[in-house]
């Protein structure tokens, strides 16, 4: 049977398949459906320093093969995560990644300082959420601003740091290069694509914030192209995500150079989809006579 172990940033992952932030809670619900220790890792729900109630009004809208969300980072805050959620997450016997967002530099730095003293294995820095009015994605659009915030966070962070990029960045390769130069240990992309939906009966936008974030299989070709571009631009590992629905999608991301991948929206579509995906990757490798994903990583 194929070996899916992946060592990256000094961390050994059982396999390169992680659950994406915002689609897996803190793992507890999914642990009632299947043995989530099979996952390479779990990215926590997006955290902010203080608890956040999230956005008002409609929060979800389905499009052809896509999902637009405007949750607005509803979360219990870093302190409650550390006290109540992290101990449970650690019991799941997989790599735990804390996804940290923020509105201001101070919020990011204080969040990092609290997470430094925990058992979190890795921090994913969210500079790309389109669903909060201030901050959020503002850090993830311009490379010089991203460089500034990532540099400060990295100086104060004693965990490996993965920076999650927005597809809405002015230039995705420049953005990745800026994050690498700022000390990021890896890059993950893409976060949701800024999108919009209209309720024609009410004659107004569906979402109170007008714009919201699109995910799901419809964004996969964009994500794949961006991962391909970024992999060729930086020397740090890249974690690919965006619309992964199958083991075939995972192989495609690996072939364009991703070291890790994340499963997001498809967790909602088939809650135990990670089982199929991990089995499918293994089966593909066996059939194709591939011993390690290194053999196909970045071949395109």
């Amino acid at each position, binding site marked *: 049977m194929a070996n899916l172990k992946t060592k990256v940033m000094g961390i050994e992952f059982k396999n390169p398949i992680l659950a994406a932030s915002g689609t897996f809670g803190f793992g507890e619900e999914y642990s009632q459906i299947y043995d989530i220790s099979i996952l390479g890792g779990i990215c926590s729900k997006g955290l902010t320093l203080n608890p956040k109630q999230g956005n008002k009004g409609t*929060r*979800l809208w389905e499009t052809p093969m896509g999902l637009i969300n405007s*949750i607005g980072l509803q979360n219990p805050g870093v302190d409650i995560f550390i006290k109540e959620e992290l101990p449970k997450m650690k019991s799941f016997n997989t790599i735990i990644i804390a996804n940290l967002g923020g509105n201001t530099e101070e919020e990011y730095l204080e969040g990092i300082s609290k997470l430094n003293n925990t058992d979190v294995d890795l921090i994913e820095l969210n500079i790309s959420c389109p669903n909060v009015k201030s901050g959020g994605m503002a850090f993830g659009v311009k490379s010089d601003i991203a460089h500034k915030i990532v540099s400060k966070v990295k100086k104060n962070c004693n965990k490996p740091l993965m920076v999650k990029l927005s597809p809405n960045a002015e230039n995705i390769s420049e953005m990745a290069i800026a994050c690498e130069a700022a000390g990021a240990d890896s890059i993950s992309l893409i976060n949701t694509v800024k999108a919009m939906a209209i309720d024609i009966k009410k004659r107004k936008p569906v979402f109170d914030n007008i714009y919201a974030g699109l995910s799901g299989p419809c964004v996969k070709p964009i994500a794949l192209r961006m991962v391909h571009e970024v992999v060729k631009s930086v020397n740090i590992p890249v974690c690919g995500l965006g619309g992964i629905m199958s083991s075939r999608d995972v192989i495609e991301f690996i072939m364009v150079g991703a070291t890790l991948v994340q499963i997001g929206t498809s967790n909602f579509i088939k809650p135990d989809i990670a089982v199929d995906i991990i089995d499918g990757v293994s089966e593909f490798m066996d059939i194709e006579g591939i011993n390690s994903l290194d053999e196909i990583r970045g071949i395109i």
Partner: protein
Amino acid sequence: MKVQKGIIIENKCISDNIYKLSVEYQGKIIPGQFFMLKTLDNSFLLPRPISVNDVNEKSINFLYRIEGIGTTKISTLKKNDKLQLFGPLGNGFEEDKLNGQIAVIGGGIGIAPLLYLTKILGKKADVYLGYKEKVYIDDEFKKYANSTTIVTEDGSIGEKGFVTDYVDFCKYDTVVTCGPEIMMNKIVDKCKENKVKCYVSLERRMACGMGVCLGCTVETIYGNKKACKDGPVFSSEEII
């Protein structure tokens, strides 16, 4: 709760755009719980939350109205076809909290989860069903209810007008309701006025169905709750 493939026993249109779906299933279900249903192809993305209408020894029934692409596709499934069945999900009606004289009030497709509840209550509840014009599954309610009042907007069958006009709220200790928001709001107000305990089953857009995506938020006096996991049944006192 688990993800499984359910084999369809029957999927038939019983009224305008209203379908009754029976699926092979064995397991404990609390009235008011729901399943996430999806066809096995990728013709639409998210599973659709559909409440349990009735439970038999080896099957469950769902009652759904065609609203969009998801329910349209589900309506094309035939006997022996399979569909993705994920559940049972949510907190349903807690039987031990339904005390004294009980009124069960449903409107439109909102009557769906109330049939199994009425059956479990065993002739204890007075049932009030409001329809626009065409009436469906009223006979099944009659089997299990203490009394059944049918109301149509045009009066073509049963009483004429809105179902809320035919309930004497001061007669009851507990009211249970599911249906259009405008109807439920009126019922909640009437219950408050008459100091009657009221439980509502809410409908929200949801993606995961189990408390992860945070898409189906319900604002309560205790902060944001999730319709899928904390509900869909809530005490009316806690909803803002």
